């Protein structure tokens, strides 16, 4: 019963990732694609938590942390890139874009 509910949660989360993939491929502008990638990362994190509960193990918690950090850093870097054209600005030259 409980594992059936958890499996249903897994199915819903994978359908959500599928919908985000549609937006990632079709998305008319680049910020659309970045938002879709961020949502894919967040949903993947939830899926890994549910899989860890289904397998009754605590080994996946580090993976949850790492995916959360990577999703945030990736979204930040991509947003900076489309806003300014560079990810890391060099301090010594002002016209180095």
């Amino acid at each position: 019963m409980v594992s059936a509910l958890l499996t249903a949660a897994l199915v819903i989360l994978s359908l959500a990732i599928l919908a985000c993939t549609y937006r990632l491929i079709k998305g008319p502008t680049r910020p659309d694609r970045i938002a879709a990638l961020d949502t894919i990362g967040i949903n993947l994190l939830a899926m890994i938590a549910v899989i860890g509960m289904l397998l009754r193990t605590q080994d996946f918690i580090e993976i949850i942390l790492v995916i959360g950090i990577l999703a945030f850093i990736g979204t930040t870097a991509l947003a900076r890139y489309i806003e300014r054209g560079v990810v890391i600005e060099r301090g010594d030259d002002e016209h180095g874009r």
Partner: protein
Amino acid sequence: MNMAGELLIAVLVLFGALFCGLSAFGLVRLPDVYLRSHAATKSATLGVLCVLAGAFLYMMFYVEVVSFKLLIAIVFVFITSPVAGHLNGRAAYRSGVKLWENSIQDDMKPVLERNKGMQSKN
């Protein structure tokens, strides 16, 4: 009692998964970047927080580990996910993505124009 506790946790997780599915539905159906970002950020954050809270309770009661890493993950996602959505929206506005044609308010435009006027005066 044991079964009821597991059922409560499973319902919490299912609720979170339903919110994630709702946010993905909004991401597909809404008309422009800013409305999509509204759907993708808030409800996905709530759904993931529900799933992770369910996982924390599950680990505490049935694997018998109080996992502080999971608490750190909950706090981290709660802080960073809206910040990432906001950064993405600001980058979209600054790079000139148009609003939906039925939008009735644009608070950012007069501020940007005022800043541009002050810069050109200097």
